[in-house]
């Protein structure tokens, strides 16, 4: 049978939150390119992902059936920043999106962007984790074209109010799905990134329901029938 090919974000997602967060924390610990307080905020969001993953569970079900609830990344997230050099919100959003199980395409004026991307790939490579295409950079010259030519599963923008509104309108005009648009404009306090629920917009939920008695009987229930 033809092997089912997984997109990179799915391979990353399937590692599980623990492994993803461990890799991200290891990488950013040595990342001097980004000031410490922003890395602290990114670490905070990583911890929130671990907290969120505790929601994954087997839900109470009728006998003979299992219902597994779990979280997944959404797919490819576009993180776009037109803010100044001292504002690293784009960085925290990138880490959060990766921790949540997404792949990220990053458009930022950050001068050390290439180095950052290279060190990320290297860290994952050394851990024998999927890396190709997981975190990529791009120059966003034509935003309209950028949005129209990619299937983004979520969008994070940090910049100006007018551009934020333009993005909002373009997303609404297009035929694609309604995706989360997270944005903060210059001057906004870093409200959402310090919130424990920031990641909720970067994950999606999945349920897997399995009929355990499809082959014709519920062995577990049968043994309960004889229990004292």
């Amino acid at each position: 049978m033809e092997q089912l090919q997984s997109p990179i974000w799915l391979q990353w997602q399937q590692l599980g939150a623990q492994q993803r967060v461990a890799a991200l924390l290891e990488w950013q610990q040595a990342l001097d390119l980004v000031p410490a307080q922003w890395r602290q905020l990114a670490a905070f969001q990583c911890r929130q992902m671990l907290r969120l993953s505790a929601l994954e569970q087997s839900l109470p079900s009728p006998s003979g059936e299992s219902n597994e609830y779990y979280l997944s990344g959404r797919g490819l997230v576009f993180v776009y920043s037109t803010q100044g050099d001292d504002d690293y919100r784009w960085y925290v959003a990138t880490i959060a999106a990766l921790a949540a199980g997404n792949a990220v395409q990053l458009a930022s004026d950050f001068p050390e962007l290439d180095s950052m991307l290279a060190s990320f790939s290297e860290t994952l490579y050394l851990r024998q984790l999927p890396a190709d295409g997981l975190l990529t950079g791009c120059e966003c010259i034509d935003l309209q074209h950028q949005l129209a030519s990619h299937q983004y599963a979520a969008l994070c923008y940090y910049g100006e109010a007018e551009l934020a509104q333009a993005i909002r309108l373009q997303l609404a005009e297009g035929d694609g799905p309604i995706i989360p648009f997270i944005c903060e404009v210059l001057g906004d306090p870093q409200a959402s990134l310090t919130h424990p629920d920031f990641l909720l917009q970067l994950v999606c939920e999945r349920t897997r329901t399995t009929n355990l008695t499809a082959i014709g009987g519920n062995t577990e229930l049968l043994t309960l029938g004889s229990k004292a």
Partner: protein
Amino acid sequence: MFNPAQVFSSDALNTPLASWWQAIPALLSADESDYLAKLQPFARANLSEKPLIDSVARHLVEAVRADKHALHILDQLLLEYSLDTEEGVLLMCLAESLLRIPDRATADALIRDKLSSANWQSHLKRDKSILVNASTWGLMLSGKIIEFDHSLSANSRLQRLLASTSESLLRGAINQSMKVIGRQFVLGETLDQAIANGAELRMQGYCFSYDMLGEAALTMDDAERYLKSYFRAIEQVADTQQGSVSIKLSALFPRYEQAQRERVLGEMFERILPLCQKAKLLEVPLTIDAEEVDRLMLSMELFEKLYRHPSLQGWGQLGMVVQSYHKAALAVLAWLAGLAHQQGDKIPVRLVKGAYWDAELKLAQQRGQACYPLFTRKAGTDSAYLACARLLLSPHIKGLLYPQFATHNAHTIAAISAMAQHDHYEYQRLHGMGEALYRATSELIGKTVRIYGPVGSHRELLPYLVRRLLENGANSSFVHRLFDKRCPVEQLIAHPCTVLEAMSPLANPHIPLPPDIYQDYRQNSQGCNLDDPAQLTELQQAMAPYLRDDCHWQGISLLAGDESEHTYLENRLAVFSPYHVEKQVGQLGFADSGQVDEALLQAERCLPEWQQLGLSKRVGILNRFAELLEAHRPELLALCQREAGKTLQDSIDELREAVDFLHYYGSCAKRELIGYSFSDHLGLQQVARYQGRGVFVCISPWNFPLAIFVGQIAAALVAGNTVIAKPAESTSLLAVRAVELWYQAGLPRAALQLLLGPGSELGPQLCRASCVAGVAFTGSTATAKHLQRYLAEREGPPPVLIAETGGINAMIVDSSALLEQVVRDVLRSAFVSAGQRCSALRVVAVQQEVLEPFCLLLSGAMQELKMASPLEYRCDIAPVISQGAQQKLLDYIDSYHSQGKVLAQSPYSKQAELGHYVAATALLVESFTEVSEEQFGPILHVLPYERERLGELVAQINDSGYGLTLGLHSRNISHYLALEQQLHVGNCYINRDQVGAVVGVQPFGGHGLSGTGPKAGGPLYLKRFTHCVVNPLDEEG
């Protein structure tokens, strides 16, 4: 209330049959502990019986254990791999599926999936016999042995074996062993073979009841085939002059169910009568097997009609099976005795314990019944069996009912022998079971033993085989423990009454009652078993006033201010039923833009008061509303039927879902919306609290006019928002009634206001209002995009948009799936609610190798779907919501007609002329990409796929952009888990249908074009309706 003592008196024979009949549904709903306590005196051994029973039972057990020929290879295997172990279950799965897989690739993959996933090591350690070494098991049985390097661990040995042995060799060996298992239980593939195979046993004094395997016919062709085989069986058995035939009613009619009662007592009766007449003519006894409890009373009605037919009178060989595991068994026996007493013809009765126990329990849980119809302890079933046996052996029953005790339990055999006051009875055993036990019994007691011998090919064997494996293989089964010498004899022969007396309560506390299965999560909503004639009648009577044509509802927008009488009077719109366009349901008055503005103002003003009420009180209102919904069940069900065109079952499920949402969100709010403290990124302690966002607009669809309407509103309200609800125009009367009940539950009017009118008019005005903080929407993707645009045009922080939209939902079926199961699940997934569910199956992709049999089964089964008024319980195909929807679907089907690609359609009926009906239709497509748009009706696309190109199919499904529900039918666990990961959907269902998501059990919602999330009925939903406010802990005080 029925008292077991009544049936033991000889006066019982003069009790009108109607009394026993009425007792049956009451008994099925009776409290188990109470009823068992009443039953015990009749099951218990008296002083003279006890020593005899103990002595005989002990003798039998010891004789079996001493018998060197007692243990077959299969028994050894089932001892080792009992079905409490993963390995046992995996072997059973192989037994159930391997032989039917037509292609080698899928068969090999299944073997590898099963053999590589189990922990065989635990079995290899303790058993000395290599017969049970799983890695040599199949090879041994086929005569080939492989030597192992015993220095390696067991799993390494197995992996080496798998690596070095060709898959075809392994497959061949395991196939062979599966056939051995099959032969253990089947007397012969044909009746000639079975008669020949039984010759030696007949010479020893055994007689046979031949069971032509096959049950649950899906198509009339299958039913016809089984009928012919029963006719042939009767003729062949007549030639042997010794034997009887057992028949399964479900094999003889594809719609053998309570909902089709008229057809069963008409058409089905006419099919079976000649069979019985033939059996009478040739003097071949005929026994009607028992099946699920749902069909108990239907089978009794059918039996009575046959029994009383003039052509069958004077026969006395038409028998019935009675199962002791359900609470009504004694009443059924009393009814049969009364029937025989009236007519004077004997009725043979085979008493069994019952074979569908686990399935019955699950069904009761899913339906939300008040209790189980069965005993929840094995000891309860066993003691009920003895009480029934005592009745059957009573002097006043002799000559009326001929008892046939089907058992493999030494104690039961001994107890019957001790309590019998005459010898006019027989024992029965299954072929392949109890051989040694009955050898010992014959020597000791010398009674007639009849062997129930299944006849048929492996294909028909499967359901029967699995039930036998479960009986034998459960650690707790008598048969299992009989061969387990570690089990003390005293334990084995303990009287079930003694076992029960040591238990408290008598009902099994490890099996929660259906209302309690969700434990602390939420209460299970109250259901109704429509297959119980008493419950159906009661419900229909309660609904009757609301189902009258002259019962109308009036609906206007419900605002916080004065009701706008003038609007109503001026702009009335008549509402008609989708199933009968001339039957009016009521009248509606739509809101104008002035009322919209007023509602927004009131909602905003009410906000502080509503938020300050507090979470606990808001939850209290939800709970009171839930009670009111259940209290007004008849009216609300009637409205669902008359306004939305829903069947009765759909309406019940709709109401249950609404109640479930209320309970779930209430309990979820108390867990998720209370504040909590956390350490922030700087290590400082903060407190997160959740507050409502403001005014929420809740826009709901017509296909779930109560459940989704209530669910969205409840979530918004409990989270501390005020709500403006905009229901679908087609189902506004139901929304009005629901909101009236909300107010009755104590909800302030301004907290929830209802605006009626076209979405195209009200939607933009509502979305553009600056006070609206969020919109919760369920409906089409196109409409959701419109809403997104309106909201995007606003200035300031954008409101939240929670949208649950549609899907092009697929099911993938590989060649290891059981096609009968698949077809049942496909029929439900594609055609329930006339396909008007966002979760509905739209494309079933079937592996090429099984396409043809699948299409045959599907087409045949679709012919049996009944198009009718949804007010009739027999309705399978209900109307679609409107003439516009109907035309769109018909045009789509026509485009396939012109290409000759209509695979099958369900029959139209005269009902179609009265309302908006579309027949259930299956269309053939060549690629998933052909289906570019969701067809919101009973239209299913059938797509063949090649196993090697499954990756392509997966990519096409993902590329559609939708991701709502997915069905997978396969026995290969690693295969379906891999597929589930690859396909980006919100709700995946494995080996079952993919509709009917239960709140909190299958949180519902999809991805991409199917919705924004979070899932309704899931743990993250409520938070989306809130702001999270974070403050330092020291400021919280």
